[in-house]
């Protein structure tokens, strides 16, 4: 497993544990990734493929994640907490050169 894959999985696990996060969705086209998802379903018994996207850009690392938020907590607050958690994890991992972290809420409730 290379560093990028390990970071993607680490961030995906991190986001899933944040209160109010009900789902973490793929940031890419769902249909294209369906085959990969099927493999993961067999292996893990759930849709649990790595879904936080990490890429290198000129200004540093870019991270993007799409989430579903439960009804109980304000979606805006959960969105900010996801950003803060990712930013903190990258900082602790010595990855201070972060160009952007995009968090998209695609479902509420």
């Amino acid at each position, binding site marked *: 497993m290379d560093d990028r894959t390990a970071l993607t999985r680490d961030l995906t696990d991190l986001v899933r544990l944040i209160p109010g996060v009900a789902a973490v969705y793929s940031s890419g086209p769902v249909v294209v990734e369906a085959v990969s998802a099927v493999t993961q379903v067999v292996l893990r018994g759930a849709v649990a493929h790595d879904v936080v996207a990490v890429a290198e850009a000129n200004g540093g690392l870019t991270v993007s994640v799409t989430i579903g938020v439960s009804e109980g907590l*304000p979606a805006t607050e959960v*969105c*900010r907490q996801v950003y803060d958690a990712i930013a903190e994890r990258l900082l602790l991992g010595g990855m201070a050169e972060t160009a952007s972290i995009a968090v998209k809420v*695609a479902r509420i409730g």
Partner: protein
Amino acid sequence: MSDEIALEGFEPADLDGHTIDELSDYLEAGCLPFDPSIESSPGCQIAMAALIRLRGVSLSLLETEAIDEPARDDSWVAGILNRIGFEAQAGRSIPVSHPSAQAFLTLTEGAVRGLIRAAGDSVTGVLIGRCRLQGDVTVPGEPITVLVDASVFWGESIPEAAARVREAIYAELLKHTELTIAAIDVVIHDVHLSRSLGEDAAEEIE
């Protein structure tokens, strides 16, 4: 923008490759066999949640209507199905504030429309037909008007039902978004019979 214009670019397959009919069939089959492309699509999940609520209401209505008017036109259900599919698409990005310059936080318009529809459907005796966000939701602080069409069950006070829908939607938007809501316009465009009213009410409405 009129509905006709808004719907021009909509293809039923825009729900991450699925149609409303496919999602309805998937629900009917108890979500089996497990379809990861549906389960991992927020648009499909929003649409299925709305389909489940619609199914509960329409079954109740159709059972009642079957007593007195078996040939009644149910095109209103088809209309709502079409709207559910359209509204569940991601649409525009609605910004969420954060002090960091590296933060790009957004809610999808589809998520917010799903929230509005669920809030309206939660009001007893009301079924949301369609909802729209009028105004530039991509600009923070821009005044936004929420436009909602709804049906009520026979016997409900229309002004009171509209007020309850407005309150429910406003509470959810206040809780989950940073939108500046200028108005919530609720139009009640239809009245349906509900199962609990029985034959007397059906005869009265005839």
